[in-house]
């Protein structure tokens, strides 16, 4: 009999606390599978963000450390510099990456720190109850944009991939989504490439993942998949934004 799917080795056997339809559980699983497949469990170090996925360490069975909100890239820098043999990744939300931690992210990328940043973009602040994120779309309703996000007073959605891509220190930047089986497979491939870039000592990699937050979007899980495809991907186009690694895809 052929095994088609099994519980990933490095995903702890506990139920997720995430809301139904949340993208975090899918992304956690992708990372756990990759750690096994790439055989890096003995040296991988992870940093969860502030936000819903702060509890990532309850699920991923690897060495992990908390970081202050937004400081993931700075903490990752310290870890990698002091222990270069490690594979260091930070798992950050959109607010963590593109609001409070913009400086840390931009400068880690600019120094070409050999780390991998996995950024989960759900266009909203999930844990605190659905406030505006830097990536909230124009006219999108959130609890702090009750009349829709107005560019005049609340600015525009921040596109971190594009910002990071212009820096000479970044080598691999890709935006993916977990809104369909095909895209989930692409997201996994992108994260795999991010880790590989780091293992090859090539420099800074950023993988953004558009991810659903049905509860705060006030949608069903299926509607939120559709909303990512129809609305989010218009503003945040998927695909490789930058790749100067000079190598083929990770597969």
């Amino acid at each position, binding site marked *: 009999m052929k095994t088609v799917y099994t519980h990933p080795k490095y995903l702890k056997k506990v139920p997720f606390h995430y809301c139904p339809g949340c993208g975090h559980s899918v992304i956690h699983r992708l990372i756990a599978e990759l750690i096994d497949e790439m055989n890096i469990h*003995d040296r991988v170090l992870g940093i969860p963000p502030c936000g819903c996925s702060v509890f990532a360490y309850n699920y991923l069975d690897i060495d992990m*450390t*908390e970081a*202050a909100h937004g400081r993931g890239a*700075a903490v990752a820098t310290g870890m990698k*510099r*002091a*222990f270069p043999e490690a594979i260091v990744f930070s798992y950050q939300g959109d607010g963590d990456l593109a609001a409070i931690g913009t400086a*840390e992210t*931009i400068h880690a990328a600019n120094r070409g720190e050999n780390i991998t940043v996995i950024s989960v973009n759900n266009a909203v602040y999930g844990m605190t109850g659905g406030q505006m994120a830097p990536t909230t779309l124009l006219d999108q309703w959130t609890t702090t944009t009750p009349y829709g996000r107005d560019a005049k007073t609340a600015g525009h959605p921040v596109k971190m991939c594009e910002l990071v891509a212009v820096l000479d220190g970044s080598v691999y930047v890709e935006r993916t989504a977990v809104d369909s089986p095909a895209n989930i497979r692409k997201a996994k491939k992108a994260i795999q490439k991010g880790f590989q870039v780091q293992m090859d000592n090539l420099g800074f990699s950023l993988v953004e993942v558009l991810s659903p937050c049905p509860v705060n979007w006030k949608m069903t899980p299926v509607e939120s998949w559709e909303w990512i495809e129809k609305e989010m991907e218009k503003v945040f186009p998927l695909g490789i934004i930058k790749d100067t690694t000079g190598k083929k895809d990770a597969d």
Partner: protein
Amino acid sequence: MDGNSAIGEAAIRAGCQCYFGYPITPQNELTEYMAAHLGKRKGCTFIQAESELAAINMVFGASVVGARAMTSSSSPGISLKQEGISYLAACELPAVIVNMCRGGPGLGSIAAAQSDYFQATRGGGHGDYRTIVLAPSSVQELADFTHRAFDLADKYHTPVLILGDGMLGQMMEPVEFKHEAPEVLPVRSGALRGAKGRPSRIIKTLSSNPADVEELNWSLFRRYELIKKEEVTYETFMVDDAKLIVVAFGIAARIAKGAIKNARASGLQVGMLRPTTLWPFPSQKVRELAQNTKQFLVFELNMGQMIEDVQLALEGKGEVSFYGRPGGVVSAPNEVLRVITRLYYQKGLEK
């Protein structure tokens, strides 16, 4: 050697592997020293970070993986680092932080001051925690205390602060280094190095259960009680027959010592207590001294901060006067001598 560079050299000899800093006067010589001397050492790292916030969080990261790491700044920059210091304390991670204090509040002046005493000794950031605070008063002590700071940080798994000032940092004095830099950089046990052949580890403070956080606080404070018992240090100067005890730390203690020498020359029986750990504070010693005299004069380069610790220690069993100059203005010894003399006669101590 200047004081700031002496800290840098001592840190390297203590096995410091990582320095992360952001320029601010008057501690730039330290950042520059580390750029020139640490960065080129095998396995060591120097980063001029994008901000003090980033620097302290890089220290956090290096400490997570078990390296000896330090950062330095001056007052406004130390305020920014408080976020990271709170996390270091909560995660029970060692780190060394140097504050070459300047006149505040706000941007203030770049001249020497001691206005960050409260911030240093009361934890500084959010939450209920303390950091060990060492207060050197010479270039030699800057070097010695830097070494001690790394050892204490590792021993108690806590951030340790060295509270100096702009004058100590810039001043040149002879200094002797008592250690050679280690061949192999130390890696603390219990660090995150990958879950190879052992269960995975988590470093965290957040919990959805307040009782967990309460237990963390209890555990921290049990350790703090131990530190208070074991690590208090101070220097006394001519206290045996003193009718008036001056309490001062850091550069202020040097100035006071000069004044006391002159006071002694004119027959005034004055002595000095100089705490070299500000937290834990030598409260016991203050009480001991109060058995011989009731008169204390606290001299600080601020509006009166350490005086509260002296008063707390005395529990009303002594009379405490204060003299201070804030904002970066530094008294000369004769100014302090005038204060000592006036107080001495006001209190009738010559009889």
